[in-house]
């Protein structure tokens, strides 16, 4: 225990010293982070409070249905925390130099596992925890819950819920690495991606939100009753259900019925920690060796030579001429990035997975049957789909654009000491990222938005806004990626889940919210005009779209400026 506390104490000291850096630039960075995180937490608080109020008082969907929606949101949240932890755990528990060092010390493997797990959990889940806590507080504020109930809901219910997701992640990872020895990492990862996609699909297929809404609404206006018999049996064993049930009974005035759900969560958490500890004693060192062996094997592939991939492009001179402008520097950078991306399975597999998600999204949206309901509802549906497009673009930008400059890595000296202008390097990265992101944004816009209206005007507006969003989000992520570059981090996933990346993502969510708010009124008027023809509503888009363009240009300008000045800093 003493060793464990000593290691944790040193980690905490190192973290605090990292925060309390003496330079005013570092303090300014900390302060701006605090403002952005604080602002986002406040925004989440207000949105949760407002949405809860709207659903329960204006839309009057009832306590039961509201908590079932909450349960679905919590399920997605659980999967997000879980996947985040699986991905980051691999780097923190298996690929970190700190672990290699600790393995050479007389500390038990289980303790190393525990220290690294705690480190990893806080590293990869702190932003999600902030959002979650702010949401719980917003929920509590709506129901006017006493402070101790809010506190209990956060500390004893919400945080254990997140911890359960994290522990399951690490147990899964240990099992996966053990299995990887049998079927290979590549196939295993593909299989795991399929399992996660399947888990989300089957959850929503089983809970069937549309059928649930119809079943509850049959009892209208008595929608505040408890309709627990509608829950599919399998769902009752899921932690998200326990959290929503705890909250339901807490606000329904029967806290005694909430306690069992807290107990389920608490004992599940304790049970899982015990299982993880026991498994770590048996498996952690073995799995760590498996990963180390795999890395060492990669480093000693006797006789296996890599053909000069750079020369393969020589067969396509038109490519270099047209796309790269026949410039040797641009050509060299492109070839380097191309081969480094496609030789790293972590990169192309993740990209493939995201493209798969985009396709699932488009297919799902295209299969939606929208009834001719209220214009406001049509506008809201349009904006939900648009927001989702923005969210997908932001996720791709976060994962692939934000780490772009950090990926120059410890080898950045080669570029920095060559006669290559850093402005050219920056715009080279920006150009390719923008081309890709804008293309994806347009495919998503043209692939999903036409379902709202056969009129090409509305799709055109969506496509135009998606283009502006692509410009703003790409420049924002590249600029902040340069500002918070981690040249010593080899793993792009860890870069994309760093403190700076969280800031960039929160910034992009704020931008998307503003964008959506600007489109509400003209969209509503547009759909109203379809029902009640009158004055042409098209012109009403002019000002909001103009403001969106302006905001996007301003973001692009300042992000690019910040990025350009950051890459010139001491390396």
């Amino acid at each position: 225990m003493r060793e464990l506390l000593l290691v944790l104490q040193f980690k905490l000291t190192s973290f605090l010293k990292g925060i309390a850096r003496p330079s005013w630039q570092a303090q300014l960075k900390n302060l701006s982070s605090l403002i952005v995180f604080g602002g986002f937490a406040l925004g989440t608080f207000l949105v949760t409070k407002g949405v809860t109020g709207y659903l329960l008082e204006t839309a009057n969907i009832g306590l039961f249905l509201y908590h079932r929606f909450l349960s679905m949101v919590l399920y997605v949240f659980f999967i997000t925390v879980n996947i985040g932890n699986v991905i980051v755990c691999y780097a923190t528990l298996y690929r970190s130099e700190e672990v290699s060092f600790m393995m050479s010390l007389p500390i038990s493997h289980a303790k190393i596992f525990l220290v690294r797990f705690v480190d990893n959990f806080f590293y990869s889940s702190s932003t999600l925890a902030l959002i979650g806590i702010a949401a719980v507080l917003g929920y509590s504020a709506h129901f006017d819950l006493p402070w101790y109930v809010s506190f209990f809901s956060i500390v004893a219910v919400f945080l254990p819920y997140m911890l359960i997701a994290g522990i399951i992640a690490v147990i899964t990872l240990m099992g996966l690495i053990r299995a990887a020895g049998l079927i290979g990492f590549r196939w295993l990862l593909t299989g795991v991606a399929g399992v996660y996609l399947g888990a989300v699909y089957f959850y929503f297929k089983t809970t069937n939100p549309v059928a649930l809404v119809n079943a509850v609404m049959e009892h209208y206006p008595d929608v505040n009753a408890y309709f627990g018999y509608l829950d599919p049996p399998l769902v009752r064993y899921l932690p998200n259900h326990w959290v929503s049930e705890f909250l339901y009974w807490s606000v329904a005035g029967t806290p005694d019925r909430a306690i069992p759900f807290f107990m389920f969560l608490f004992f599940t958490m304790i049970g899982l920690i015990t299982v993880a500890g026991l498994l770590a004693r048996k498996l952690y060192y073995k799995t760590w060796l498996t990963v180390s062996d795999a890395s060492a094997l990669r480093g000693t592939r006797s006789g296996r030579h890599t053909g000069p991939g750079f020369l393969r492009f020589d067969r396509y001179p038109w490519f270099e001429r047209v796309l790269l402008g026949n410039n040797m520097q641009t050509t060299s950078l492109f070839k380097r990035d191309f081969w480094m991306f496609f030789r790293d399975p972590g990169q192309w597999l993740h990209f493939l997975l995201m493209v798969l998600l985009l396709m699932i999204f488009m297919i799902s949206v295209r299969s939606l049957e929208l009834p001719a309901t209220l214009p406001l509802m049509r506008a809201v549906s349009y904006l939900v789909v648009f927001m989702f497009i923005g969210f997908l673009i932001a996720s791709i930008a976060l994962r692939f654009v934000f780490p772009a400059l950090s990926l120059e890595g410890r080898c950045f000296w080669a570029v920095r000491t060559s006669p290559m202008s850093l402005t050219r390097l920056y715009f080279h990265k920006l150009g390719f990222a923008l081309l890709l992101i804008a293309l994806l944004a347009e495919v998503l816009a043209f692939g999903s938005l036409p379902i709202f209206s056969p009129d090409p005007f509305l799709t055109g507006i969506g496509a135009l806004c998606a283009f502006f969003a692509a410009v703003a989000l790409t420049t924002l992520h590249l600029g902040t990626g340069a500002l918070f570059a981690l040249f010593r981090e080899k793993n792009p996933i860890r870069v994309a889940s760093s403190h700076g990346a969280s800031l960039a993502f929160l910034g992009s969510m704020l931008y998307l919210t503003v964008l959506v708010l600007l489109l509400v009124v003209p969209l509503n008027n547009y759909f109203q005009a379809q029902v009640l023809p009158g004055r042409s509503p098209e012109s009403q888009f002019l000002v909001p779209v103009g403001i969106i363009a302006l905001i996007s240009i301003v973001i692009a300008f300042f992000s690019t400026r910040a990025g350009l000045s950051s890459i010139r800093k001491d390396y």
Partner: protein
Amino acid sequence: MYEAMIELKNVTKRFGPLTAVDNVTLTVRAGEFFGFLGPNGAGKTTTIKMMTGLYQPTEGVCLINGHNVHFNSLPAKRSFGYVPDQPYLYEKLSGREFLYFVGGLFHMKHDQIREKMDALMDLFEIGPFVDKRGEEYSQGMRQRIVLTAALLHDPSVLIIDEPILGLDPRSARLVKDTLKRKTKEGLTVFMSTHLLEIVEELCDRIVIIKGGRIIHEAVQDESKRFNGQLESIFLELTK
């Protein structure tokens, strides 16, 4: 060709309250083999990083071949080749690809790179591993690849931070002989090292730096050699 190939004029570098390099002024002439010595933390790598554009000096200027490295950086960078103390390579690229990459950054065409690479490959004996990926290299292999990359574009100045670090005796001999020959052909070498016997063997002139300040300068030529005395001079000055 500019006579003074490297000029540092009153160069200072501060990191917050710490002054790593303090008002350093020095000149290295064309064709000279210059040794830059100092104990750990003396400011050698910081000075080199300012000379190569990796650090911006707080005060003063760094000129390479007459060009300011920070305000006229591209011509300055065209003039030198750089070998860092930690020669990191891209893990997923082979040595040959790395050389094509660096050649491209210096605007060299593939044919030119191939021709030059073939000559340097024999010189540094990198042929057996040049097509393996960076992740497979030992420190010595990386060092030889980076040396090849630094000489690929025929620079007039070579800036090396700890050139022999991690090399086996045979490779070290190879590098020393090559550097000696290149200097005779007119290459200017600025070398930072801890290894005093290498300095005695190779350098025409040395500077010793301590606490960021130059504390000693000495010339070594046919008439005046250190003859094994450098170690005692160094230890006395840096104690």
